[in-house]
Each structure stands twice: as structure tokens, then as C-alpha cells.
């Protein structure tokens, strides 16, 4: 096992898959010589050349649309949106096209494409470099949305996404890129898309989250452990479609559930998780299903005071978890 950072796991998965399969190629803004604004594609241009590590014009709709065409031809494009915030011009191509190609053609055509994008806040990125955008897409059958939390999951899930025969949105937490490090197997491995993962077993309360929230939850859980509160932590990993079984099991395990996202509260994917629990676990619940999320304002401001106020952090989780345990 090698220890690598979250972003190194991205690069490593791309490199492996490009070596394994000639049909895999990368396209996006500044992904070539520069290696991406976050360096996710560093070294790939040198290794695979400019036709497989393509700097595109500054046109998200074309990045998605040209990728879709190439995928229909039989390629496996991995498109990068420079920031998740800038995926918006590509929404029509992603929702109207990529997600519906198999269905609308009655299984004749398909679109095996990955769209990667760094999302999330706490990096002084302000309104347009901090957003969680998954909720915009989490109602579109035909799409899958993966949001991994650890280098191990990043690598296994990105490989799975590239090998998947359908379009996958792969959102990487930009603050996790260098903050989060972890062990990653040397050998080739894939993790199943659509499956949540228990990151910590516990008995008193259940926290369901994803991305950076997983680390905040683990950190908070450790402190609470000292107070005798035992937390069960489920990492969704795939936020669309949600792993219903895993959610139900985790909720039933403790009967007390906290849902955590750094997205705005109203209409986040945690609403769906709550609805699933409501439908399936009503008589197993000992307390109302709580949500900890960003306030309902358009993403987080630049000024550190307001950014901190918006963004979830281990303290906020700790408080919410303790409150739930004490309910």
C-alpha cells in the first residue's frame, strides 16, 4: 500500500486506466501542459501526448457534447470541468443528452463518459469556486453521481466510473485534494458504484454523509467517543442513485440519524436520504432525522467570517451529534 493524497489518487487512476485502455482520453481546460489548475492531470500530457490529454477551448457545453459524441463512437472520454461551478453551461448536454442516450435509443446507443469536477468549499473560493452542485443532477435517471471521500475510494471509484458503460459525474472535493491522505493498494482494484460504505461502526447515533463531511464526522466521532457516545458513520460515496439498502440499514442500526452535507439545506441530496428513511424506518426511529447543512444562501462568501459561518466543520458536527445522542 502506498500513502497518497486525494488528488494523487485521481491522477493515478487516470494514468492506470489510460495505460490499460487506449480508448480512454482526457479533455478539458488546461489539462494538458499545465496539468490542470489543481494538477489532477499532471504528467499525463507528457506520457500520453496531446491527442489523449486535450486542452479544449473554454467551452463547457462543447467539452461535454464532444465527449458525448466520442463516447457514442466507442471512446471513453474523461472530461474535466475546471470547477464544478462551471458545469452549468453544460447542463443541457449532460441532462438532455448524456443521461438519456441509452434510454431514448432503446439500448441501441450508449454514452460511457466520465465528467470530473472539483467541488466544495472552505478554500476562500467564494460564491463561484465553492459550490456543491450535485443536487442539480440528482434527479436525472441515466446519470450516476459519485462523490468519494478518501484516496482509496477515489481511485477505486474513478476506475469503476471510467469502466462504466453509462455516464458518471465524478465530483472531487477540492479541499480534500491535498488535505486528505490515505493508503491506496498498489494493485488494480475497482469499487462498486452505487454502494455506500460504512466508515465507522457505532451504536448510539448514525451519521450519513459524503465527501469532506466523512472526515469531519470521523473527527467529531473520535471526540465523542471519549464522552461515551458511539457513532456509526455511513459514507454514501454514490449520491445518485442512492444506496437505499445501506441507508435503511444504517438508520435502523441506531434509530438516531444525522444527515450532513455542505450543500444548502433545502433540496440537497440529504432530503432524499431523509425521505428514504421516512418511508422505510419510521418505527425504528428514536428521534427526528436531523440535517446539518449550509444555510439557504447562494453558496459561501469570500470574507473569512461569513465563509466560516456557512461551511460545515468538525465542531458543528460534534455539536449536532452530541445533541442527537442526548435526544
Amino acid at each position, binding site marked *: 500500500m502506498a500513502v497518497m493524497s486525494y488528488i494523487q489518487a485521481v491522477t493515478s487512476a487516470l494514468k492506470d486506466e489510460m495505460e490499460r485502455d487506449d480508448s480512454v482520453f482526457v479533455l478539458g481546460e488546461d489539462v494538458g501542459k499545465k496539468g490542470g489548475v489543481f494538477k489532477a492531470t499532471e504528467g499525463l500530457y507528457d506520457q500520453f501526448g496531446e491527442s489523449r490529454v486535450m486542452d479544449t477551448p473554454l467551452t463547457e457545453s462543447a467539452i461535454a*457534447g464532444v465527449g458525448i459524441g466520442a463516447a*457514442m463512437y466507442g471512446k471513453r472520454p474523461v472530461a474535466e470541468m475546471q470547477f464544478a461551478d462551471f458545469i452549468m453551461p453544460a447542463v443541457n448536454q449532460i441532462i438532455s443528452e448524456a443521461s438519456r442516450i441509452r434510454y431514448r435509443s432503446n439500448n441501441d446507443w450508449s454514452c460511457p463518459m466520465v465528467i470530473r469536477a472539483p467541488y466544495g468549499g472552505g478554500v476562500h473560493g467564494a460564491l463561484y469556486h465553492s459550490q456543491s452542485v450535485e443536487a442539480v443532477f440528482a434527479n436525472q435517471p441515466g446519470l450516476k453521481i459519485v462523490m468519494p471521500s478518501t484516496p482509496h475510494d477515489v481511485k477505486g471509484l474513478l476506475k469503476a466510473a471510467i469502466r462504466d458503460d453509462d455516464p458518471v459525474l465524478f465530483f472531487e472535493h477540492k479541499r480534500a485534494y491535498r488535505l486528505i491522505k490515505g493508503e491506496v493498494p498498489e494493485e488494480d482494484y475497482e469499487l462498486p458504484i452505487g454502494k455506500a460504505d460504512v466508515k465507522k461502526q457505532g451504536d448510539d447515533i448514525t451519521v450519513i454523509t459524503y465527501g469532506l463531511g466523512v472526515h469531519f464526522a470521523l473527527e467529531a466521532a473520535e471526540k465523542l467517543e471519549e464522552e461515551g457516545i458511539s457513532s456509526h458513520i455511513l459514507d454514501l460515496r454514490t449520491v445518485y442513485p442512492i444506496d437505499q439498502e445501506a441507508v435503511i440499514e444504517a438508520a435502523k442500526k441506531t434509530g438516531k440519524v444525522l444527515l450532513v452535507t455542505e450543500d444548502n439545506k433545502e433540496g440537497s441530496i440529504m432530503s432524499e436520504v431523509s425521505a428514504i428513511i421516512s418511508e422505510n424506518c419510521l418505527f425504528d426511529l428514536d428521534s427526528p432525522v436531523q440535517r446539518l447543512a449550509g444555510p439557504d444562501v447562494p453558496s459561501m462568501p469570500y470574507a473569512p467570517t461569513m465563509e466560516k459561518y456557512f461551511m460545515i466543520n468538525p465542531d458543528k458536527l460534534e455539536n449536532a451529534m452530541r445533541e442527537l445522542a442526548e435526544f
Partner: protein
Amino acid sequence: MSQVDNRHQNLGLSDEQVLDMYRTMLLARKIDERMWLLNRAGKIPFVISCQGQEAAQIGASYALNLDKDYVAPYYRDLGVVLAFGMTTHELFLAAFAKAEDPNSGGRQMPGHFGQKKNRILTGSSPVTTQLPHAVGIALAAKMDGENIASLVTLGEGSSNQGDFHEGLNFAGVHKLPVITMVENNKYAISVPLERQISSESVADRGVAYGMPGYQVDGNDPLEVYRVVKDAHDRAMNGEGPTLIEAMTERLTAHSSDDNDKAYRTEEEIEEMKQKDSLISFAQYLRDVGVLTEEKEQALNKEIDDEINEATEAAENAPYAEPEDALKYVYAEKGGE
């Protein structure tokens, strides 16, 4: 042989080829007309027509390599998909939304074409999204060293969408073998050309993407053939993309849901009908002696029979089962 200039020989087209082109144009027209009848009889909920654009569609398609090239057609391209190999029978299955419809198994409205075995990309309703797809096909083929081209078609109103700009710029930067043909019928539903497009012509927009732009008489299949053939040659020679604007007429209302009397005058509609390529091309073929009275009768009979059979077969074909609505959201095996 007649006195008339034999234009198709000059283009390297045989008598059989032009007759075949005419046959496909006529077939497209007659299928379309039948669909209107079926719609007016309450048998199919919707029609959107190719009428008036057959010459452009057939002229362009026949200039391609129909065994290797790809096409991303738009909803009026009945003529294009026929040329690419979709059958009359299949088109009626689509019109009736029957399970065996190869385009979508009855999931999409008619005019939403797609058939992988014939390299017809699956299409949607939002206009112009298919343009970047055709660019992606050309890019992928180029990566593989396959010397093929893709054709993408769209209406002139649709040439104002952002995807037109982004897609053609991408093709231009990478000099990809994409042929874009705008079928300019001078209306986007009710909105006339001068409220749609600020440039003198759509062809003028080629300059913005470093590619040649040609305007061509879309009522003349041979002229369209010539220009598209030329574009295809350029594509095959690695000289990159071409933009073509075929000037056509929309002989019908926008669709079976539209009433064009609300925004076009009778005179305008009459004038348009004078330009019908079905009439002028037939006349040309008669003039050069390729189309005889006899052949014409046989052709009409053959096509009518084909359409009658296809209509009946499609009408009697089964719908998909209700629960089939759940199928094919994702690959059956795979990452799920």
C-alpha cells in the same frame, strides 16, 4: 439523349445513381404525406415534415460514404435517414410508436432518429445538441486513424444556439472532418429569418470558425451534391470542416400542431410551392432522358405499395409493454 446539359454526368453520377436519388426523394415525400393523412385521421398524434427539404437531404447524403460516414440528423431529415439505410417499414413503426421501432422502441416522438447499425446518431428534441456530437465522432475517428466524416444537419434558427458556436469552433481548432449542413427554410416555427439571424447568411458564419462556408440552392439536389462532395473530399484530405447552408422551403406548417396561416400569407406559400424540387428534379431527369413515363409509373406504384404495406404492418404491430418503460436506464450488466 436530350439537348439538356447532362449535369449529373459532369458530377460523375451515373443514371442509376440519380434515379436512385430521385426515388429516395419521392419516397421521403410520399412517406411524409402519408403521415399527415394518418395524423389527420387521428391515427398518429404527431408529424413533423421533410417536405421541401428532400433535395438538400438527398443531395448531401449521396455525396457521403454511406457505408462508413456517420450522421447526426435533425427532425426533418427523413430523406437523410432513408439514404443512410432506415426502411419505410421502420419509419412507420416510429410514427405509430411501436415496440419494434429501431429509433427508440416507441419511446420518442417521430423525427427523433437514431440507428446504430446505420451510423445514425440518436437525437433528442432540444435543438443543436447534435452538433457537438458529430464533432466528437469526427474527433474519435481521427484519433483512431479512420478516414471518415460526420455530417450534421440543423435548421437555420438552430444555428443561433450556443452549441453551434462551441461545436464549430472545436471542429475548426482541431480541423476535424465534420460537414455541417444548415437547412435554411427561412422560418423557425413562426419566426422569420430576419428576426432570427443577424448575419447576411448562415454560410457567412464559416469565417468565425476558420472554415469555408457555402450557400447553395437546396432545391437542386445536384448542386447540393456537388458542394457536399467537395466538402467530403476536403474532409478526407485532412483539410477539416465545412459549413454549408442549403436554401430550402418548408412546404408544410412547422408540424401537425402548427397553423402557418397565422404567420405566412397565401401568396408566400404559393410562391414556395413553385420551387418544389420534386417537380424540378423530375423534370430534369425527364429532360435528360433518365426518367421515362414508364419508369415514373413503376416507381410511383412501387413506392405506394411499399408505403401501404409499411403502414399496415406498423399499424398492426404491438406497442411495448407498459413495464418496458423501466428498461434501459442503465446498462443491464455493469457498474450499477
